[in-house]
C-alpha cells in the first residue's frame, strides 16, 4: 500500500493510569530463594488516543480516552477498580479537549474507531451524540461481542475492563469489523488477538512514514521486544505472541514506526497534540 499525501496523525495524551507493573508485564519481579519477598512496583503509564487527518475523509479519531467520572474521586468506577488502576487526568486531557487543541471539534469528526471496548479507550463516545461520527463508530465484532456478553449476563461491570454503561451510550451506530481490511486509502484495519478476543489495530500510511497503532495488543516497546514479554493482564497469551509476529511482518514490510498505547518512555520522546506527524 502506498503512502498518502495529506495523511497525518496527532497523538492525544488522555491522562495517566497508575498500576502494578505486573499488569503490563507478566511476573516482573518474582521472589527467589535469596530474595523471597521483593516489593511490587507501582508505575504510571499514559493513556493516548490518535487523531487522523485524512485528505478525503477529514478527521477520524482512533480510541477515545476515558469518560468523565472515571478519574480518581470521580465516582464513576467502583472503589476496587479505582484501587487497581486509578486514572489521573487534567481538564484539558479529555479526548474532546485534546481535539480542540488541534483546532478540531467533535462536529468535524467523520468517524470514530475504537480499538477495543475497555473503559480507558471509549471516552469520546459520550461526546459525539448527534454528530456525523455518531453514525460511524467502528468496533471489533469479536471484542464488542465479548464485552457485551460479559456485561449483560447480569448487567454488571467486568472489573478494570468492560463497564456495562459504556455499551449503552445513546445515539451511536456501530460498524462491526471482522477482519483485516482497507478502511480508507492509506488506512488499514488489522485484527490483533491476545489482550482481548480481537483488537482493531491501525496501519496508517501517512505522507512520509507508515505508522502502526497496535493499541493494547502491545502495551509498550518492552512487551514488543524482542524478546516479546506477555502482559500479566491477558486474555489469550498465545494470541499475544501471534500478534507480535503479525506486527513484525508489517513493520518490516513498510519500515513502519509503532506507537504504543501505554508506554511512558516512548511517549516522552514523541510530540503530542497539536503537533501532526506526516
Amino acid at each position, binding site marked *: 500500500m502506498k503512502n498518502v499525501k495529506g495523511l497525518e496523525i496527532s497523538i492525544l495524551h488522555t491522562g495517566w493510569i497508575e498500576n502494578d507493573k505486573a*499488569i503490563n508485564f507478566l511476573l516482573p*519481579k*518474582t521472589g*527467589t*530463594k*535469596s530474595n523471597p519477598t521483593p516489593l*511490587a512496583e507501582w508505575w504510571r503509564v499514559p493513556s493516548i488516543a490518535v487523531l487522523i487527518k485524512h485528505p478525503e475523509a477529514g478527521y477520524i479519531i482512533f480510541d477515545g480516552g476515558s469518560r468523565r467520572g472515571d478519574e480518581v474521586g470521580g465516582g464513576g468506577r467502583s472503589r476496587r477498580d*479505582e*484501587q487497581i488502576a486509578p486514572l489521573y487526568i487534567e481538564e484539558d486531557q479529555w479526548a474532546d479537549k485534546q481535539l480542540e487543541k488541534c483546532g478540531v471539534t467533535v462536529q468535524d469528526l467523520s468517524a470514530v474507531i475504537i480499538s477495543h471496548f475497555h473503559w480507558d479507550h471509549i471516552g469520546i463516545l459520550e461526546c459525539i451524540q448527534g454528530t456525523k461520527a455518531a453514525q460511524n463508530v467502528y468496533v471489533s465484532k469479536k471484542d464488542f461481542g465479548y464485552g457485551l456478553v460479559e456485561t449483560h449476563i447480569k448487567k454488571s461491570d467486568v472489573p478494570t475492563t468492560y463497564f456495562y454503561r459504556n455499551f449503552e451510550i445513546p445515539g451511536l451506530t456501530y460498524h462491526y469489523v471482522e477482519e483485516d481490511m482497507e478502511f480508507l486509502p492509506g488506512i488499514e484495519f488489522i485484527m490483533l488477538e491476545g489482550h482481548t478476543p480481537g483488537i482493531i489495530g491501525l496501519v496508517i500510511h501517512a505522507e512520509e512514514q507508515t505508522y502502526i497503532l497496535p493499541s493494547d495488543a502491545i502495551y509498550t516497546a518492552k512487551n514488543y521486544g524482542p524478546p516479546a514479554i506477555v502482559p500479566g493482564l491477558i486474555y489469550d497469551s498465545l494470541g499475544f505472541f501471534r500478534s507480535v509476529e503479525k506486527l513484525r511482518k508489517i513493520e518490516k514490510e513498510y519500515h513502519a514506526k509503532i506507537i504504543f498505547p501505554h508506554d511512558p518512555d516512548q511517549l516522552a520522546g514523541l510530540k503530542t497534540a497539536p503537533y501532526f506527524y506526516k
Partner: protein
Amino acid sequence: MTTMSGIKFSIIELGEVDNDQAWNVTGMALGTKDNPNPPAVWWRVPMIAILVQHPEAGNILYDSGNYLNNNIDRLPQALQEDFPNLMTRKDYLDVQLKEKLNMSLDEIDAIIISHAHFDHLGGVGFFSGKKAGQNVYISRKEFETALLATHQNPSGLGGAYFKGDLEFPDIEFKLVDEDTELFPGIEVIHLVGHTPATLGMVLHCGSGQTYIFPSDAVYTSLNYGPPAIAPGLVADTLGFSNTIRKLNKLEKKYNAKVVFPHDPIQIKQMKTAPYFYE
C-alpha cells in the same frame, strides 16, 4: 463410564518446594492505589504422586515426582533460585513407596505421566528396565512439546522440561492421542493451559465416588475458583479457561472430588499414604 469395584488410590507426598506464589496464582499480591508496593508472597507447596490400585491392571502410578539429585545438582542453579527444592533423599518416590506402602518398584505395573516437567516425570528414572518402565503413558502432544523444548540447544533444558528425564535407559513410552479410558474406570483427559497437553486423570473408584486429578493444569483450589484465577506460570491463558470449564462439567457430571497437585491447603485436609481412598 465404568465404575470398577475395587479401584482405590493413595496420595504419596514427595517433598515440598518453595516459590513465589505468583507462579501458581496471579494477582494475590497486586499493588493498589493505597498499598502500591506490597511484598511478594513466598510460599511452600507440596509435590505428590498418586498410586492407583486396580483389580485388573494392578498398581498404576499417576506422576512420579523428581529424579535423584534434582534437589542437589542435577538441575541448573537458576531453577534452585526460583524454586528451591526442599526434598531430602527420603522424599523420593522409591523410598516413599517402600516406607509408606511397603511396595517395591517392581510391584508397579504402569505409569501415567500428566506432563513432562521435571517434578512429575523425573521419577520414571527409577523404573529403567522394570515392568512399569515399559508402560509409561504420556500425551503425544506433550511428549512432542517436551522433546522440541529440550532439543533446541545444547543446554537440554527448556522451561521446566529436562532432556535427561525424556531419555532414561530402558524406558518405553505409550502415547495417548485423545481423551480415553486407559483401563476400566481410569480415564485420561487432555487439559490445555499449563502445557499444551497435560493429561488429567478421572478415577471412578469402587465406592462409586469419582475423583478428578487435573495435575498442574490447575495447581490449587485457589486457581479452580470460582472465580478461576490463572497461574503466572502458564503457556496458554485461554486454554486454562477452557480447562476450567471442562473440569467443571466433569465434576458436576460425576459429583466428583477434585484433588489438586500443588495445594498447601488441600493437602492438609486429605489423608495421605498409607491411607487409601476407595
